[in-house]
């Protein structure tokens, strides 16, 4: 799954993800007809509009094996919200089936003990995205992947704290969102890293966008891009 944010802002992220998987010998297909997991509408409080888009996603990924997503948030949407979204509807079984097959990129690498080889050396700091951490319940797999790739990670304070992105929240409460983003960017710098890495592009766009506006010298890359320099 490419994810809509990658399509919109950083196609390099899904392309890097594909290369990382292929280097591990995984047979990767990236369905051209895919669109979005529908999370924007779901969290904005429009479940009917979300369902219409999610239905398309169910169709696109029907009959595939594992669905690997370079985003803890989009993966979490499919794994956690799809069963609720389609509960009591004809697509319920398909939704549960897709949820059971969906996994985040670094989780997939860890699960199958895959090693994509050397990546960037760093040093970087790792931001745990909330959905990776509290929906996918994962904080180890990205660190493990970075360590295997030979990338030095310097942990920042409160790495489990929200960066304030929150999708629709980032534009409905921009000031509050930016304050948390600024704190995150400063914590990253204090950790002695010039670059923040995460499994979620949304967080990175936000943190780096705030940092740039505030003149904080912080770079950002998706974990797939660090694994595929």
């Amino acid at each position: 799954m490419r994810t809509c944010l990658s399509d919109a802002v950083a196609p390099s992220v899904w392309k890097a993800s594909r290369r990382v998987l292929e280097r591990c010998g995984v047979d990767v297909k990236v369905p051209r007809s895919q669109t979005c997991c529908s999370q924007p509408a779901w969290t904005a409080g429009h479940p009917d509009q979300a369902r219409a888009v999610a239905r398309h996603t169910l169709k696109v990924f029907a009959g595939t094996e594992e669905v690997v997503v370079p985003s803890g948030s989009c993966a979490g949407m499919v794994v956690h919200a799809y069963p609720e979204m389609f509960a009591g509807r004809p697509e319920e079984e398909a939704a549960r089936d897709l949820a059971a097959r969906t996994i985040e990129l670094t989780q997939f690498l860890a699960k199958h003990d895959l090693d994509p080889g050397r990546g960037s050396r760093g040093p970087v700091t790792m931001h745990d995205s909330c959905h990776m951490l509290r929906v996918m319940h994962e904080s180890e797999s990205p660190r493990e992947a970075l360590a295997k790739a030979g990338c030095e990670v310097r942990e920042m304070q409160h790495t489990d704290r929200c960066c304030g992105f929150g999708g629709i929240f980032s534009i409905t409460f921009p000031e509050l969102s930016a304050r948390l983003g600024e704190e995150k960017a400063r914590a990253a710098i204090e950790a002695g890293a010039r670059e923040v890495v995460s499994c979620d592009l949304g967080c990175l766009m936000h943190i780096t966008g705030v940092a740039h506006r505030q003149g904080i010298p912080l770079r950002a890359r998706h974990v797939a891009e660090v694994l595929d320099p």
Partner: protein
Amino acid sequence: MSTRRRRADGGVAYLDVQGTLRERTVDALRDRTLRGNLDTAAASWGEGREGMRRDHGLDEMRERAREIRQSNIRNLPALLAEMQANVRDAGGTVVRAADGAEACRYITGLAKARGVKVVAKSKSMATEEIKLNEALDDAGIEVVETDLGEWILQLANEHPSHIIAPAVHLNREQVAALFREEAGTDDVPDDREGLVAHARVRLREKFAAAGIGVSGVNLGVASTGTICVVENEGNARLVTSQPRIHVAVMGMERVVADWDEAAHILQVLPMAAIGQDAANYVNLITGPRREGEADGPEEFHLVIIDGGRGALRGTEFEEALACIRCGACLYSCPMWRSVGGQAYGSPYSGPIGAVITPLLEGPSSPASRDLPFMSSLCGACGEACPVGIPLQDLLVRARARASSPATRKSGIAFRAWSRLWRRPATYRAWMAGWRLMLRARGRNGWVTELPGPGAGWTEVRDMPARWPPRR
């Protein structure tokens, strides 16, 4: 700072708050002292709570607490009937109030009938919800808050900012200034012990004068008709025993079946709330003073409030009724920690407040309909909740239920979005257009002004026009 106002419509949120929710967050963000005070409090809570998880197995206790509360809510009508019968058997009076206004009418009526001029209160969010202080004030009855935090707020004329620690947004110096003003003298110490000693002296004078003591209820135990009032200061013990009449105000969902369940919840509550394995005082009260007893009030009245709770049973929001009002989700919430509870404009702030305030008020209430949107859905609340309420899921459901000009506008936008994004061809065309726009607007790799809904993004941050972004 706010002037308290009464609500005639039985709503929960405060009507005297200024500006929109977003404007209030901006004001709060400017207040550096507030932020420092909240950080200190949240950090100390976090440490205590870690200890509870490490040494007392709070995480394991959570599953049983969840089961207990789920079963309580399923059996609520039967438990309430049992509770009611047992309180009456113990010589107490039980009143079921459909809403806050009815509850306030009963309590002010009781005060007038008994010729009571002064009411002493211990901390109770239920009375804050029903605006009891305002109702008593309107009836010409003096109200004295005896919880230290609540008394501070009474002096400051402010609303509580936290369910358990109402004045947590103020620091020692700010409190000392309030005490000096109230006492009319500069002769008030500003160390912690000195401040508490000062408050103790001032408040003790008030207990003697009070004809009615009003308390909240942490838990009602159906099997014996006992109410549990948990506290750290001893003031609730005085409020419930010194005045001639004790009125306990309880939300209808706060009942457990028996003492097995009560014992478990009473353990979990202080662990989650303050990161301690026990509260200083746990008051267990069954009816008024009995024949031959030396202490206790002559009359005991239990006021049980529905206030919109009953209607939540059997809905997708039912789990919210399991809440034991520990305030853990507040401390854990990055939003609450950034702006404090007062910005929410409701006695119930933080994630649980953002869910239940609009549920109790109705989906289109201007005072609370925006609250569910003030969350990044980070899920820290659900993780902190000691009874396992999936708060982030409830926030999403509450958003779907909200109705306002903003939700109607976003509904129209998302209908268009949905039509475009469910078809690959229109999705790809949209994406191509978007990327062209980014490139056209980009300067040195960054877009500083986005059109349409994107304007909210670039108000405070830039958008990378290429990825990885330039520094």
